[in-house]
């Protein structure tokens, strides 16, 4: 199975193809569409990530040393971004998730989205993932 670094590299290469914003966002939207929706009973308010303008639910559980993520969002671009993060971090060792770098998002041209104040809450989602991972690793 690919490591976090390897998965990030795959994503970076995928996005390298896109010169146009439309292609990039179409791809994000596709990723969002292909992410399994969270079942209704899991879309509880206490799974909502604070600081996003759209609703983003993040669920995490332990799988041995690894951490499993499930997520959903009501806005499709937010969901696409979450899908990307799940792609990278899902079923990886909790320790590594907690320590992982997220510079790849900058490389794939989502730098704009990385500020902690952004309405998309990308940084909040990453923080929340690492928070879970840290809890499970500890």
């Amino acid at each position, binding site marked *: 199975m690919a490591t976090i670094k390897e998965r990030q590299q795959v994503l970076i290469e995928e996005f390298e193809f896109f010169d146009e*914003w439309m292609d990039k966002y179409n791809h994000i939207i596709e990723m969002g569409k292909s992410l399994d929706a969270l079942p209704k009973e899991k879309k509880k308010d206490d799974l909502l990530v604070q600081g996003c*303008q759209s609703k983003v639910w993040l669920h995490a559980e332990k799988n041995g040393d690894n951490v499993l993520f499930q997520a959903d969002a*009501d*806005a*499709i*671009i937010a969901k696409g971004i979450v899908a990307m993060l799940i792609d990278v971090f899902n079923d990886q060792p909790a320790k590594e998730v907690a320590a992982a770098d997220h510079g790849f998002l900058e490389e794939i041209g989502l730098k704009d989205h990385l500020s902690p104040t952004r309405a998309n809450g990308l940084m909040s989602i990453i923080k929340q993932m690492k928070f879970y991972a840290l809890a499970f690793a500890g």
Partner: protein
Amino acid sequence: MSYDVQSIRQQFPILNQEIQGRPLVYLDNAATAQKPITVIDAISDYYLNYNANVHRGVHTLSQRATDAMEAVREEVRAHINAAETAEIIFTRGITDSINTIAFGMGAVVSNNQNVVITAIEHHSNIVPWQMLCQRTGAELRHLPMNEHGEVVLDDIEDIIDENTAMVAFNHISNALGTINPVEAILNRAQKVGAWTLVDGAQSGPHARVDVRAWNVDFFTLSSHKMYGPTGLGVLYGKRKKLEALPPYQGGGEMIATVTLDGSTYAGLPHKFEAGTPHIEGIIGFGAALKYINEIGIEAIAAHERELLKYATQECSEIEGFRVIGDAKNKASVLSFVVDGTHPYDLGVLLDQQGVAVRTGQHCTQPIMDAFCIDGTARASFAMYNTKKEIDIFKTALEKAVTMLR
């Protein structure tokens, strides 16, 4: 003279830029307006030439700053036709103005009374009254709205009654653009002797208001929505009403005498202006008012009505486009959803095409709850927007919708 939007645009250098490689189309004016060069210059001029703390200063700079600030107070008075400058208080914004009054009314409201707002208020005109009601035990009521986003007056005689202490509502809704039936609401309030406050956040840039024609007790404006600097608002209050309220903040300027055992308070407007004022903001706001009056608020409003009509027509051609708030009487705001899309996604994809709209609840969660939606995308217009920009907006919106479906 016809309305020359191109020469107006030249006064707003910020408009002349690219966002994501596309020309900026700024349609987030209900959140804050851009500033004409005269405002920016007035601020620089102040700091380059006569910055000083005001009042009680005998030196030349302080006197120049004081004169400039007080001249704006008079301009504001004239602009809204208040009786005297002492009734014009400078605050930090609408939010600060309303809190000032809601706090003060803690001293005059009792627990058998009620406060009435409408269903289409900004949080700034809801939460301060909730706090007042919590402190005093008074009841918070509201005039309901219909499916067009219009305030319904059918039960007004039951809702605003002999026990109503205050009726507070916005002139124009920032989330829907609805223009409220101000006179009808004020009439009922005045009939039962309730105090009245009109939130003019969205009237400032779009409508002429005459506080004495309305006979309203309190009226409030935000500079930043009127092409002026941030951090400044205006609170108009009738002298008698302002005098009946305790001061809000204690500090410099607002006192007559201070000993360590007690203080007496200064007269109006100083009683409500504790601390060093936002001098630069006041001076910049003076320049903004001057600019608005040069173009003419009626001409601006007419131009914006045109834009609103055009935008509504054009966008309605988009499949699934739904206007949120289609009141008969509307100003300058086009709030909408597009079926099968989330406002946040629309906002992101519009931004990628250079178009700035606001998305979300617009600080009016009760309205969103009433429409059973999470939020809207909102395009709002100002004196410098053009039909061509609306065309760009429409095309961009179409592209976004296509991508999202």
